[in-house]
């Protein structure tokens, strides 16, 4: 065996074993036929990056299989696609929250907050404009979700990456935390959502195309939740300003309203929903269907949420400062640690639910519009 063949076979290990069993020999043969045409010693050649990229893309498509794929690969693909959709729903809610806060803070709706109380930059200044745009950019998550449930994967992916990157590009301070590592860890849940969206919906696994009214509902619900949260945050802020020094009771709600806190609450809600629905899920578990489900099959919610739990745990842990002194710092650390424990409990429960619910694609979906497999 030449060195080149050895190298190429190593690259092919990116593919699942079952796929390699079917295809490896003929792929190696085709690859070496092409390499021989180059007429140099096969021990001196390297596998080109374009070939490696081609195999990696194939491996991703095969491992995250679409309809018609083997059950295991289909289930993995559904879990990743489910994580993308659940993540998009969550970030749509947060996008609406950030946008509504921006609208309130910068007086786009006049007189809601005292002018200049929290705003950065003078009215009409480029800095103010940058801040406003940075606050509104997360609304692109809603555009991404809307495009996805209307079957436009390319637009959904572009919008999601824009929603992820634009706030930081417009306002580098949006990363928060001391240094870029903390910023990256905080952004990990959104990054995982964008990656799941990009990898999960490929040519062999196109997104569902929901009717316009259903798609609008899928987007409107998290947007409404985000706006309500923004109003709640505004009310809390007003109460805090009126009361002077924030006490433990006043501080508690804030600690659940930052992105990691809200992710914790959302994952708790999803886990509780799954546990309560478990008997129904078990009764309706079926093998992978022949056609693509419209949104997230409920059997894929547990693994999808389990995927999202990992970056949320990392993001929450990144904001903890156990060594910080002072009563309020101690309280923040305590609540953060409690959230971390709840997230870990969610993760364990979700993994257990995934393992105990075979036949991941169950009959109904989050929008209740999925066709019943025959």
């Amino acid at each position: 065996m030449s060195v080149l063949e050895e190298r190429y076979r190593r690259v092919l290990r990116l593919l699942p074993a079952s796929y390699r069993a079917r295809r490896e020999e003929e792929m190696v043969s085709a690859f070496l036929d092409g390499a021989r045409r180059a007429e140099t010693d096969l021990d001196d050649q390297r596998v080109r990056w374009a070939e490696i990229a081609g195999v990696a893309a194939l491996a991703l498509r095969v491992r995250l299989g679409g309809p018609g794929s083997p059950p295991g690969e289909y289930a993995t693909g559904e879990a990743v696609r489910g994580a993308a959709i659940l993540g998009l729903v969550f970030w749509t809610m947060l996008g609406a929250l950030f946008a509504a806060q921006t609208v309130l803070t910068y007086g786009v709706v006049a007189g809601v907050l005292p002018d200049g109380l929290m705003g950065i930059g003078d009215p009409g200044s480029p800095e103010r404009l940058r801040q406003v745009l940075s606050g509104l950019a997360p609304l692109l998550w809603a555009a991404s979700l809307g495009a996805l449930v209307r079957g436009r994967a390319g637009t959904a992916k572009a919008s999601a990456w824009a929603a992820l990157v634009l706030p930081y590009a417009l306002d580098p301070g949006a990363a928060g935390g001391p240094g870029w590592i903390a910023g990256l860890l905080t952004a990990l849940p959104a990054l995982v959502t964008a990656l799941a969206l990009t990898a999960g919906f490929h040519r062999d696994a196109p997104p569902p195309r929901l009717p316009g009214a259903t798609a609008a509902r899928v987007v409107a619900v998290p947007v409404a939740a985000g706006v309500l949260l923004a109003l709640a945050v505004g009310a809390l802020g007003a109460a805090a300003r009126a009361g002077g020094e924030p006490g433990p009771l006043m501080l508690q709600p804030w600690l659940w309203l930052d992105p990691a806190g809200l992710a914790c609450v959302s994952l708790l809600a999803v886990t509780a929903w799954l546990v309560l629905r478990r008997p129904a899920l078990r009764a309706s578990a079926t093998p992978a269907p022949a056609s693509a489900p419209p949104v997230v099959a409920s059997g894929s919610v547990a693994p999808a949420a389990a995927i999202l739990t990992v970056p949320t745990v990392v993001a929450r842990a990144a904001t903890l400062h156990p060594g910080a002194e002072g009563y309020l710092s101690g309280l923040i650390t305590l609540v953060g640690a409690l959230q971390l424990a709840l997230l870990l409990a969610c993760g364990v429960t979700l993994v257990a639910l995934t393992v105990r619910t075979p036949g991941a694609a169950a009959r109904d979906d989050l929008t209740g519009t999925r066709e019943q497999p025959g």
Partner: protein
Amino acid sequence: MTPRPITEPAFLVLTALVDEPRHGYGIAQEVERLSGGRVQLKIGTLYGVLDRLAADALVEPDREEVRQGRLRRYYRLTDEGARALEEEAVRLADNAHRAVERLRLRQAGGLA
């Protein structure tokens, strides 16, 4: 399931199989020749295309040969594949014809 649209690489792979069954590298070579060197399929890309075409029953394995200790699996165009290719070719030719017609009109000053 709704039939998948035929992408350019898939179109060229189907075209490469019209005259005779070919193995993986043979298909890649023929696609390069058909496209005037413009499309050079990587092996991973080629097998992704072949997987999709086989799943849609547009191509199927023909035979296997062992040359110099290496497996060569040949693929052939199915009747359904020939029909799909013909429909796509007619559609593309129709589009191209309309484009050429309009460009001629434009050159003649018939269109703004």
